[in-house]
């Protein structure tokens, strides 16, 4: 009912859908993006894109899944734009950056430490890890979405797991 109204252009109905789904989408984007400001911008992009495409949504997947996919695509688009800006930096170079990551945390709380360590990962590694181990994407899907070789994605995820496991063991 709500979705049908929103599909017909009812922005109040779309507002109710926003308030229902935005917290999960924002949690995902907060993990994927570099900072809160970027996550907030991507949230806006996601729902504006959702509004634009909603007339075509036929319910093949749950609305939440559909919005998640739009959010991930918005993030990947931003990542590709950043990649073009940083064309000199290869994924392999990102791996090398990891030497400086995951300094011991003085604050207690495993969740906080893990969140912080995820946030400290290089953007493409963070994306691969979150999509694989938090969102459940396949390696092939991630490779295709990020224009990265599947082997590189596996290496990124494996390295991220190692860093996070070490963080837990601390």
């Amino acid at each position: 009912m709500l979705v049908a109204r929103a599909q017909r252009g009812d922005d109040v109905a779309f507002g109710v859908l926003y308030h229902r789904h935005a917290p999960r989408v924002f949690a995902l984007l907060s993990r994927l993006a570099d900072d809160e400001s970027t996550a907030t911008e991507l949230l806006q992009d996601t729902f504006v894109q959702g509004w634009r495409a909603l007339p075509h949504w036929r319910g093949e997947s749950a609305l939440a899944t559909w919005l998640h996919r739009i959010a991930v695509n918005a993030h990947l688009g931003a990542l590709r734009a950043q990649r073009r800006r940083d064309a000199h930096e290869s994924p392999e170079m990102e791996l090398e950056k990891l030497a400086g990551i995951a300094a011991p945390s003085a604050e207690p709380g495993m969740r906080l430490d893990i969140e912080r360590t995820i946030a400290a990962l290089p953007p493409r590694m963070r994306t691969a890890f979150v999509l694989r181990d938090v969102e459940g994407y396949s390696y092939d899907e991630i490779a295709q979405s990020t224009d990265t070789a599947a082997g590189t994605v596996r290496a990124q995820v494996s390295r991220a797991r190692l860093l996070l496991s070490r963080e837990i063991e601390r």
Partner: protein
Amino acid sequence: MNGRPLPPPHDSGPDPRLRAALDALPRERTPPPDKWEQIRGTLAMVPRDGAPAVRRRRTRMQWTALTAIAATLLIAFSALASRGIRRASSDPLAGLSEDERRDPRVLALVAQTRNWHAAANDSLRSARWPAAARVAVDGAIESTNRALVTARAALARDPNDVTAREAIDALRDQQRAILQHAITLLDDI
């Protein structure tokens, strides 16, 4: 060697402790409270897939009225809510002249406002309403209340101010539509 590519190595996933920690991560995070209003503000400008942009021709008088309403809203949004506005939002008849109390348009709005208050205060009926949606509706009503106060003040200064009179009518219609729509929508949840 048979020339076939080697299968990808088996992925055993994160170790159990990491898996447990990831599963414990919060799945929801509250966005900034004003984000929806920002998004909503852009929706009208977004062309929708499958929905060709509708170009409506407006008359010069309509444009004048719309401009007046927009200006009134702009002024009202930037002003602080006065005590009178708060009173008006809790008692729909407060501050209305005798003429206004007989105006069918005003009476319809008063009835709709009372419907809204009754629905919002009915704990069973409003149990599933998202708090944020309710806050958004209250915010929209308060905004139009502020605009109404400004337009009514303009009309009080100049009873022949046609623009102010049209703005008041438009705002009342808008407020009634918001309330009616909100109740229908929220009851559907």
